Structure formats: C-alpha cells, structure tokens
C-alpha cells in the first residue's frame, strides 16, 4: 500500500478535545504514512505548557511523544508563535519552527491535508 504524505493542520481551538482528537488521528496515520502535524494561528497555543486536565480534557503528551517515536514531524508556525509572545513547552521531541512560506509549500506538496 502506498505511503502518503499526510499533513495535519491545527489552526484553532488549541485547548480543546478537537486538538486531542486531531493528534490521536495523526498518531494513527503515522503508522503507515509520512505525517507532519502543523500548528498555525491560535493552534500554536496547544504546544505551550497548558494543563488540559484542569479543564476536563485528556493530556496530549502521549500523542506528541508517539508522533516523535513514529518519525512524524511536529511543526509550529514561527509568525504565530512570535505574534502571541508564547514559549513552547519541551515535549521531549523536536518541534520545528517554520515560517508561513515553508508551511505553504509543505501543504502544497502533501497528498492529503486534514485541517482541524
């Protein structure tokens, strides 16, 4: 079966079940696809040191760790991070900071784009 380039884009609702489900989906996909998970706009907040359990949401740490183990890339939009003046948490895996142009190119090159 063909391995595909699959890009997940998390662009809003960073502190929600949506982000949790998006990451679960990305982990599942990373087993047989080349997966990149890209956080843009308000989505970048999901990569800060927030506390999901305080607001009744399951933590996303395991999902991000799994993405790292499966060789998936995790990317944050540099403009979005800078504009919000936020600091990303150390998730134990490498988070690539990438500018909009590069993110555009990755999206264009992807075979499947899934947005949340």
């Amino acid at each position: 079966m063909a391995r595909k380039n699959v890009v997940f884009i998390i662009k809003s609702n960073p502190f929600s079940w949506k982000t949790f489900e998006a990451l679960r989906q990305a982990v599942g996909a990373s087993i047989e696809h080349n997966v990149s998970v890209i956080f843009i706009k308000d989505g970048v907040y999901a990569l800060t040191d927030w506390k999901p359990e305080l607001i009744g949401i399951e933590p996303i740490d395991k999902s991000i760790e799994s993405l790292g183990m499966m060789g998936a890339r995790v990317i944050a939009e540099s403009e979005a991070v800078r504009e919000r003046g936020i600091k990303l948490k150390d998730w134990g895996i490498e988070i690539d900071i990438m500018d909009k142009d590069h993110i555009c190119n990755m999206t264009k090159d992807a075979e499947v784009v899934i947005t949340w």
Partner: protein
Amino acid sequence: MVNTVWIIKKLADFPELELIEEDDVIILIQDAVLRTPSIENWYACEEDTVARNIKIPEDRLVSYADIIDLIEKANKVVVW
C-alpha cells in the same frame, strides 16, 4: 487542470492567500456563502446559498454533484 479544491466553511477561516495557487478552485459552503472572496476562481454551493437567500451570480453556483466532479478532477481537496 485543477490543482487543489479548497472547501471553505467560514470566511474568517479563509486560508492565507499564499496557500492558494492560480489553478486552485475555491468552493464556499455553509455560512461562508455570506461574503464573497476577492480572488478569481471561486464557486458557492447552490443549496447553501439558496437556503440562506443570498444573491450570488448564477454562473458561480455549483450543485453537490458539481462539487464532487470538481473534487474528482482536482489533485487534492482541502476542507478549510
């Protein structure tokens, strides 16, 4: 040849213009039909437009079958 079909649900959520290429097509659905974009290749879901009683030129309206045909002809579809 259509490159990417962008299905847009809300206008506030409009993809960055740099994402859209010349041979891309934009299809407005749901409440996105309330405001029309400033770019060239766009259509609006006819049923969603009529349901909201919004006036959009006839040649911009596409049926669900048309949308499926556009998706089939394109390389890729992104719901944004």
